[in-house]
């Protein structure tokens, strides 16, 4: 008689896996990667390749030789971290800076906490912020490198819109004067594609495409990105209504900097975001508020990375105290 498997129900599985999810995230990042390659050519390819190889390599080495445990690089989570790290760096970043970022992201932020599923902070963001603090000049060099796809265009400086505004305001200009002095600061360009800033920030549309893909594939739920974006819109809207000469409008704030990239791909990181819907909304509002406060009152022009990392730290509390809505009222059975 042949042997039969005997195990408790359920006897079938929905066929999702960590690897498939990570693959979907990589596919969702593809439009942003393509735009980066279009604008920054070889520099972007180098950035992405070094990012992915370094992140996966660091994870492999640590698991194999330091932890002597099962190597799980094939789950592709390190590859996602590598791409996100690359897309959060200036296109001109030298290879060794990326490698340091990868070591910090995977080695410090992920593996020291116990690897995938145990880290408190988003690894790619820890890597990026570490680099921003350690190498401030390299990390804010917004030179746009030459690209094969845009022949005839040499390397130009391409300061980020947020930096342009912050500098302009510091020099006593009004928002209108700054915008008219920089003819490429149109909504159309910011939405479709504008060279400048981190490698992944060039096209809002590419990020939105990725967002739609993630929603359709049910990889993420819309709550976190939507609350972040709405909060940023409301907060900046209030400042803008009070003084439009000193504060940019909500649409400008959403389309520039890392709000879209951060809210779609970084804040939704499973491991470091809340499990229940109510927690997600609180988390999203927190990120939105902190982003705007850092942008307007902090010393950095951009605050999404810091805002996400700060909110990451309260996720365990949110998970512990903000419970999902339960089915059915509690009744006493005395």
């Amino acid at each position, binding site marked *: 008689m042949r042997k039969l498997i005997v195990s408790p129900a*359920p006897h*079938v599985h929905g066929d999702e*896996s960590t690897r498939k*999810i990570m693959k979907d995230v990589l596919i969702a990042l593809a439009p942003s990667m393509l735009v980066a390659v279009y604008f920054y050519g070889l520099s972007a390819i180098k950035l992405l390749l070094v990012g992915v190889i370094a992140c996966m390599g660091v994870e492999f080495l640590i698991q194999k030789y330091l932890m002597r445990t099962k190597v799980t690089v094939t789950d592709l*989570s390190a590859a996602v971290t590598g791409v996100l790290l690359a897309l959060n760096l200036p296109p001109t970043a030298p290879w060794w800076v990326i490698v340091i970022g990868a070591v910090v992201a995977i080695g410090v932020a992920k593996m020291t906490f116990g690897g995938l599923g145990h880290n408190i902070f988003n690894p790619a963001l820890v890597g990026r912020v570490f680099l921003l603090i350690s190498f401030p000049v390299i990390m804010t060099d917004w030179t746009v490198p030459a690209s094969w796809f845009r022949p005839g265009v040499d390397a130009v400086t391409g300061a980020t819109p947020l930096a342009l505004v912050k500098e302009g305001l510091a020099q006593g200009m009004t928002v209108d004067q700054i915008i008219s002095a920089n003819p490429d600061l149109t909504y159309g360009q910011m939405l479709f594609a504008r060279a400048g800033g981190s490698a992944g920030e060039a096209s809002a549309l590419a990020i939105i495409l990725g967002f739609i893909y993630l929603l359709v594939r049910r990889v993420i739920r819309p709550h976190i990105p939507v609350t972040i974006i709405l909060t940023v819109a409301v907060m900046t809207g209030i400042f803008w209504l009070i003084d439009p000469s000193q504060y940019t409008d909500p649409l400008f704030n959403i389309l520039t900097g890392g709000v879209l990239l951060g809210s779609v791909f970084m804040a939704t990181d499973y491991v470091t975001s809340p*499990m*229940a819907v109510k927690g997600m909304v609180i988390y999203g509002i927190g990120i939105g508020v902190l982003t705007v406060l850092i942008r307007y009152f902090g010393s950095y022009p951009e605050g999404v990375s810091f805002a996400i990392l700060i909110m990451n730290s309260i996720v365990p509390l949110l998970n512990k105290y903000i*419970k999902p809505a*339960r089915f059915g009222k509690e009744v006493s059975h005395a």
Partner: protein
Amino acid sequence: MRRTFSMGGVHPHDCKISADSAIETFPLPQRMYISMSQHLGAPAKPLVQKGDKVRTGQLIGASAGFISANIHSSVSGTVAAVEPYADLAGNPVMHVIIDVEGDEWDESIDRTPDIVRDITLSPTEIIKRIADCGVVGLGGASFPTHVKLSPPPGKKAEFLIINGAECEPYLTSDYRLMIEHAEEVLLGARIMMKALGVVEGYIGIEDNKPEAIKKMRELTASSYPEIKVVSLRKKYPQGGEKQLIDAVTGRRVPSMGLPIDAGVVVQNVGTSFAVYEAVQKNKPLFEGVMTVTGECLDSQHNFLLRVGTPFEKILEAVGGVPQKTAKIISGGPMMGKAVANLSAASVKSTSSLLLLTEKQTKRMEESECIRCGKCVQACPMGLEPYLLNKLARAGRMEDLEHNKVYDCIECGCCMFTCPAYIPLLDYIRTAKADVMRIMRSRPKK
């Protein structure tokens, strides 16, 4: 907006490959093994001894308590033994074993094919008849039906809901009953409504069964206006009592409560048919429809099967167990039980034998929880399976109770959806049993 339950749920593939196989009468085997424990509650007390002659439909096991049920012989013949016999899990359970001789039915049973529409019995007589005939819930839990139809003092039923969701993949026995015996099912509902004293009835059917919905709508419109057919958007576990009540009426049964706390009694389609047969035909529950299915089988079947038929006889009749079969399940793939012992016999509530290949049922190696929250999203009770799993592994009983492990309906959605292949329900199920034992052992205030 099509109706469904409000929280959680998953969408497993339908796989209703036996839907178009009409009900066939399964031939009588030579020997029957009738379990004395086919229901929730106390096992029945055997009334026969070795050597006794029995007739089909004769009482052979007496209900042994308030929550218990009568057991009747499904065949005529001689009692070969009254002794423990291994059930599908291999555990010894008291059985009456009968050598089949002919098929001589008890004379009190109406064997004509005519549908009896006049309900002459009073509510008390109906409930007594249902108890006498050993009718139990055929949706899975096998709770004695007469107990469900007798709400405790102070609680009043407002609606009866007939559960035609059949949300488990593969199963088609309720579907075939709704297609082939629609009127009997509705009469069963009318009988139970009379017993409960309610005037509003519903039958909830998932919209992957349009023919059943159409058939029921035609019949209710012409002759059963007190019963409304509710088409439900396909989602598992729609057939869970709490989920079905939510989907059909919008009411939520309270935590740790029973459907009656929301003013509802739910009965399955198969149960409704059994109630009709018991009350109108005086026929005890000793046979029922069972699906025998699986992609690896050459043919798909819905059998009208006597209680006590050994699984191996059923599998022989469909051409034997194919070589690639890795698991045989009694019930559906989400909540059914894996069969460890093929010589075990069918019971009243055996709704199917499902054969799955290794590819279909293999458990993958567990990896780290990535905290994706998919289990939280999928849980129809609003629980946090990832957390319950962790607490269960750590043995933290108090925290498990605070996080309402007792509300788990063991539907398996969490484990079905987990991308890290964590056997969440394995741990939660065990922890739930432990926590409930602790809660029950506390002195009552």
